[in-house]
């Protein structure tokens, strides 16, 4: 067990590192949940035998049941966590691969543990090549978030404006509200401009489509690719890269941090000066290869290795855009290849 000898009181600890013994933590946890459980039982006794008429019965019952569930559940979980080793806990809770050989559709994630599921790739046939790759991120959600943010601030500004105008008409101006209104107008102005940019970006850039001929890919294999970009803009440049990224997620106190490192990056397509219109899309066929002796795709709870095709576009009069498409790379198996 690793225990920090020195630690800053105001410093956030990383991950599961402890600054005390496991036993003292367990005792503290048990004491806390026991207290909550006792409080719940005492409250239940009062509720059943000496009910307070001034408070709602059902509301009190809800509070009492919550205390009992939190206290009892917490005690049970604390006991389970302390009583068994992390390995045994993991062996019990870990998802078991489907070992039924008679099963028709054995998922590749069952045969290759800790490799992301490829259902999204298999279920999506391409128009030119066999598989269409799923996109990593969608531009729709940032646009929706920007719209909601901007509409919320607009509502705040209108409410403040009505209040300030009413107060001025009644000859009792609210100076505090007037100052808040000025601040709110500035935020609304910024949010509306940002929202407009997001909507314009979403509508102008159009759809990006990526298809591949083979799946799953293995180190040392090559593959054909097909790319399509629609939209209404002048593209100054467009690059497609094959990227392998290590990604680590860690907790620092209450913050969740994500760090990425490009383990491999190779430019595979570079296009210049293309005019996209509604009747003229950009199509391009290309080839790429997964290098030998590289790590396969991997997904753990906090860490992953991702292979992806990344499209970076630079329009003439719009902000740059990036779109990523997930590839699944399986490990090479020399024993099976030799057999």
């Amino acid at each position, binding site marked *: 067990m690793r225990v920090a000898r020195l630690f800053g009181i105001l410093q956030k600890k990383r991950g599961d590192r402890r600054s005390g013994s496991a036993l003292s933590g367990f005792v503290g946890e048990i004491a806390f949940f026991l207290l909550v459980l006792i409080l719940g039982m005492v409250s239940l006794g009062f509720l059943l035998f000496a009910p307070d008429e001034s408070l709602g019965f059902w509301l009190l019952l809800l509070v009492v049941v919550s205390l009992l569930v939190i206290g009892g559940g917490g005690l049970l979980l604390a006991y389970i966590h302390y009583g068994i080793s992390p390995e045994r806990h993991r062996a019990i809770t870990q998802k078991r691969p489907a070992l039924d050989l008679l099963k028709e559709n054995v998922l590749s994630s069952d045969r*290759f543990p800790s490799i992301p599921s490829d259902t999204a790739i298999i279920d999506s046939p391409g128009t030119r090549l066999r598989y269409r790759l799923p996109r990593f991120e969608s531009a729709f959600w940032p646009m929706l978030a920007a719209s909601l943010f901007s509409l919320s601030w607009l509502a705040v500004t209108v409410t403040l404006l009505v209040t300030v105008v009413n107060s001025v008409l009644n000859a009792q101006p609210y100076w505090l509200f007037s100052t808040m209104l000025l601040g709110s107008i500035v935020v609304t102005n910024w949010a509306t401009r940002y929202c407009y940019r997001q909507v314009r970006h979403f509508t102008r850039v159009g759809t990006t489509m990526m298809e591949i001929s083979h799946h799953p890919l293995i180190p040392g294999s090559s593959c054909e690719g097909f790319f399509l970009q629609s939209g209404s803009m002048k593209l100054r440049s467009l690059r497609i890269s094959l990227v392998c990224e*290590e990604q680590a997620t*860690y907790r620092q106190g209450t913050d969740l941090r994500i760090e990425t*490192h490009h*383990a491999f990056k190779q430019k595979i397509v570079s296009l210049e000066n293309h005019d996209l219109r509604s009747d003229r899309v950009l199509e391009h066929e290309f080839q790429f290869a997964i290098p030998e002796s590289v790590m396969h795709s991997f997904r753990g709870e906090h860490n992953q290795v991702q292979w992806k095709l990344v499209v970076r576009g630079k329009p003439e009069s719009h902000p740059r855009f990036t779109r990523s498409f997930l590839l699944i790379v399986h*490990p090479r*198996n020399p024993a099976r290849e030799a057999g």
Partner: protein
Amino acid sequence: MDPLVSIMLCDPHRLYQPGQRMRCSYQIDAIAAEAIQAVEASVLWITSGKGDEDMGIHEFHRRVSDDENPDLRALHEFETSLPNSPLSFDGTILKLHWLVRVKVFQEKGPAYTQDLPFQLGTLAVFMEEAS
């Protein structure tokens, strides 16, 4: 005093390929038989590096001291087929290690853990000595 746990693998180079059979044996010493409550042996992978630790259990055995197994110190052997993935990996912010872990739960005092790393696959990895 900590018990002495020796773990042995069938391949002295500790290099295995996915799907290969791995035979492992372990023996416990320097502790009285009645002082051992239980022994857990697992074949597992763990991650290290920048992120929080991930763990995956491939094989797990727990032996408890009872009438059938009065002495858990004796040489014990088990065999397993290694999985297709994940392979051992030594990245920049992520490392993946495969190991055989034997945990001895004592009647008094904390559990004692002994690890023996091995390599799964042929990617370049960082091999630590047994802790």
